[in-house]
């Protein structure tokens, strides 16, 4: 379940999206905790999501690469997104590697190699899509390695740091 905060036209919505699968075209999304029914096309490789129905209402959508805006048949809406998961992401495998949840830029690093850290302690800030995503320690231990520098651009899933329990 990805959890996002979406702000548009002065209102903020918390949207929870289930793991998407290519062959599942109807599923439930939570908006501020309330379920809404969504259908999407089964998409072939060449197409981005350009049409969906939400509670039976069809929307033809378009957006720019950076998700600065969403347009529908009714108009254009500047949007702001915050990935609520990205702030507190921890590896599900339980290991100490901290990976980039999205591509972005390393805005700051709060720890040094050899430094002891507590679980949940901020390690670094990854700037992506106009958001500052604080990445925290997945477990208590020592910073064994830091693979990035401030100002560096990183790919998604790139290992940024490792914590040794």
């Amino acid at each position, binding site marked *: *379940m*990805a959890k*996002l905060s*979406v702000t*548009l*036209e002065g*209102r903020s*919505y918390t*949207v*929870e*999206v289930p*793991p*998407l*699968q*290519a062959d599942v075209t109807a599923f439930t*999304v*939570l*908006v501020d905790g309330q379920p809404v029914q969504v259908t999407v096309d089964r998409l*072939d*490789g060449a197409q*981005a*999501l*350009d049409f*969906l129905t*939400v*509670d039976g*209402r069809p929307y*033809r*959508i*378009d*957006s*720019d690469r950076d*998700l*600065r*805006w*969403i*347009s*529908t*048949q*009714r*108009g*254009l*809406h500047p*949007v702001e*997104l915050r*990935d609520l*998961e*990205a702030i507190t*992401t*921890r*590896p*599900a*495998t339980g290991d100490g590697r901290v*990976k980039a*949840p*999205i*591509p972005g830029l390393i805005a700051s690093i709060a720890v040094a190699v050899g430094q002891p850290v507590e679980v949940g302690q901020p390690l670094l800030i990854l700037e992506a*899509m106009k958001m500052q995503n604080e990445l925290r320690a997945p477990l208590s231990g020592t910073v064994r390695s830091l693979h990035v520098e401030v100002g560096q651009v990183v790919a*998604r*899933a790139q290992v940024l740091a490792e914590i040794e329990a």
Partner: protein
Amino acid sequence: MFKKMLIANRGEIAVRVIQTCREMGIATAALYAPQEARSLHVAYADEAIPFSGSFSDPAAILAAAQACGADAIHPGYGFLAEESDFIRVCTAAGIAFIGPSADLLDRVHDKVETLAFVRANGFRTVESLRPAFDEDAESIAESAAQLGYPVVVKSCYGGRGPGERLARDPERLREAVRSALAESRAVFGKEAIYLEKAILPANQVGVQILADRHGNLIHLGDREGSLQHNNGKLIEEAPAPCLSPEGRAELLDSALALARLLGLENAATLEFLIDDAGRFYFTEVKARIQTEHALTEMITGVDLVREQIRIAAGDPLSLRQAEVRFRGHAVMCRIHAQDPLNRMRSSPGQLQEVRLPVGAGLRVDTYVQSGCNVPGTYASLVAKLTAWGGSREQAVARLGRALEDLTLTGVPTNIPFLQSLLRDEAFAVGRYSIETGYRHHADIPEDDAYLQAVAVAAALLYAGRGQPAGAVVPDRLQSGWHRSSRRLPQ
């Protein structure tokens, strides 16, 4: 009739001319730059000629026409459409020019002289003055004071909007003159401006004229072009809602008389300002096809490009004034590749998907198709969408519906801005002037379900980002890396 027409233009007007030529059985030759290889005028012409020259270069166009064996040239509404010298070299080369004679263009070329001539013949015109020396700030300020503020600074040549500037005081005047001169130089290669006494508020109305070489001259009604943004027309309509039936009859009669006085030929538009008392003032003549001609075609059923070609071939008009029947109402909007979130700056690039609206009473004029480039080197107009309806209300409703159905992805467009304008009260009731301000009409913000759905769309787009194109399954969601199943809601 002609055998082969060179289309000395690009974009939607080139496509427009090619359509009629093909329907008349005239072969067509299109010119294109490499980045325009996927533009529709290339696809639709019988012959597509790579062209590295400028559409404003008479020698390059003539050479292209001769190389492909064209016996006629249609200039669209570009620079060459009003260049009498170009017509003369075409004529000398035995190639017909689709438009008026060189002599007519010479007669109406200087707008200030034309205004004076028209005024001298008893027609009401805007008051205008040409400063003694174009670049002499002193004399310009004197002229403005003489006319009385506010004044409009205009280029003596050409007919496009960008050359127009409103000045309410001497300070703004200096600015307006400076930028008008710069633009006049850039667009027309000459520095020449004049001043018009501004009429405020006013509506801008054009009357479509057709005249053949056999003395037949008719009008095809009026068009309203007052809804402008940065001096560019955005939404136009026909007939003009600002005219009363009596006002219209008087205006059209006057336009016919003026057309005769000026000896207009082929297709031309006489432009007027209408003040708030309904008085009309002649401003200028556009002796060529206009961008918004589709409006007139929709309410009259007359193919203006066909008439242009017939007239240039020496044929008589295909109908008389009494046979012109007006039906219903048409509204057109101009769709530009402009970024509404970035001050309407032009946004060239490659279009991804182009999906056109379908159904009754619609007309799309465009050069774009899926995968086509919108070049940064030309104006940002990518399409004109025109809707017809039995009434103005129906035409506007249809245009709104069609704008919703039109999809252009890959480059930002002004469609959201146009949708906002259509929702404006002043436009909805048809009471607007060139001075009307339009506020941004948010998109039905009271509908929370709608905003929620847009939020869902944003979340899904985010969740699908960075995926192999088309898959909606981010691997970070599948891998289970960034979340703990224990922390899932529920």
